[in-house]
């Protein structure tokens, strides 16, 4: 559900937010707005890969909030009991075809991913964008012929922007953030929607302020910032 952000009493001090690297821009922005809305608070971010963050939290890192790029990494934390609250989905992301500037491979749709003479990059199945890509291909009944299965979206984008590959499947937000790649929409995109969950850490040092931050992210103000970055509403 969505709440309206309103200054809560007793919210002050420092909170530490562990957030997926892909949230760097939007959460930095959100943090500034939150601090403005709650004078006396300070938000410190630790941006890294979701799985690394999950590891850190499980090993006792002093975090207040965890915002993951995939439910799977959130589950790694809830499994160990480091998070007891039910995670809330604060954003969704869908896939888009990314092609280099000028689309040299003349890629128009998902069907081109089966062409052997095109260089294709996908995410590995172990990471969320790879899992999503698999669903999309299954839905479209296409057998993709990738040349490489990257460990994250960033690596895929690097190869697209340098023209090493002719096409790749990445998140819509990533295409939006990178001005050296162009996006090509395709019909099956909504067959694989990736959820971004957020939750309060069980032993959060500053639980009150942390809860306020979570609420802020889920609020209308939060949504606005996320939508600007290309995320879809949950």
């Amino acid at each position, binding site marked *: 559900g969505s709440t309206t952000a309103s200054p809560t009493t007793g919210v002050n001090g420092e909170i530490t937010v562990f957030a997926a690297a892909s949230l760097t821009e939007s959460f930095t922005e959100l943090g500034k707005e939150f601090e403005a809305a709650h004078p006396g608070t300070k938000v410190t971010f630790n941006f890294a890969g979701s799985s690394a963050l999950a590891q850190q939290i499980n090993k006792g890192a002093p975090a207040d909030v965890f915002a993951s790029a995939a439910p*799977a990494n959130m589950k*790694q934390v809830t499994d160990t009991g480091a998070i007891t609250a039910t995670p809330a989905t604060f954003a969704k992301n869908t896939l888009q075809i990314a092609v280099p500037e000028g689309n040299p491979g003349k890629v128009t749709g998902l069907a081109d991913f089966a062409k052997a003479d095109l260089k294709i990059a996908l995410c590995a199945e*172990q990471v969320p964008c790879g899992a999503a890509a698999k669903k999309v291909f299954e839905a479209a009944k296409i057998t993709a012929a*990738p040349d*490489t*299965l990257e*460990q994250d979206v960033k*690596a895929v984008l690097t190869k697209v922007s340098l*023209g*090493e590959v002719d096409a790749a499947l990445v998140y819509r937000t990533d295409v939006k953030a990178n001005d050296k790649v162009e996006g090509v929409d395709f019909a099956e995109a909504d067959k694989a929607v990736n959820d971004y969950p957020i939750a309060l850490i069980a032993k959060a040092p500053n639980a009150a302020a942390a809860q306020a931050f979570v609420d802020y992210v889920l609020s209308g103000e939060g949504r606005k910032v996320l939508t600007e970055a290309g995320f879809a509403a949950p």
Partner: protein
Amino acid sequence: MRSRLPVVLVLPAVIGLAFLLVPLAGLLVEAPWATLPAQLFSAEVGQALRLSLLCASLATIVCLVLGVPLAWLLARSDLPGRGLLRALVTVPLVLPPVVGGVALLLVLGRRGLVGQYLDQWFGVSLPFTTAGVVLAEAFVAMPFLVISVEGAFRAADPRYEEAAATLGASRWLTFRRVTLPSVMPGVVAGTVLCWARALGEFGATITFAGNFPGKTTTMPLAVYLALETDPDAAIVLSIVLLLVSVAVLAGLRDRWIRA
């Protein structure tokens, strides 16, 4: 007949050893041993392990062939600007490996400075191939070899080279028969560093060569992907990599050194 080892040396040495080994012990303690045999004998792990060993060894050979002469040149010749050259050679160490991979793509990629001609003229494309893995590993690991071997060359007494010259030996023969054998310990140390670094290489490899099982998926790549979904499996994979490298190093190094 020598006296006891001095505590002022042994104490830091033991602390240093503990610092390096206790985390490894931690890994061993926490590892889900039950899954080890299954992992060890799984086809993918075997494939990744073989590929890792192959690529690291080939990369080490490339580094030896190119790096030992380079180290010699830096140590012995009187080129102008040697100091700057030497600093430049260490640069790939500082470069985050992922950026190193990008740099390789910029040069050797399909649209790279050199790569576009390789592609046009010879139809050779290095990214996404096993050769690309070898290149990426060599790029990252070579500075280690060059720097330690250069230190060894620099410490070797140049008068033996003079003696060889008076016996009519060309610089090349002198290098091969006199200088190189006398710096063998340094070369072995550099080779070990280089091989180990190549074996553990991740960032530049995945950026330049991508990740395709059986072709470019080395163990570190497998470990990374496992970390995403199953950290315990990643630890087990790392331990497999460690055990293999310890076995190889312990087996080979003393043999090299004795020889």
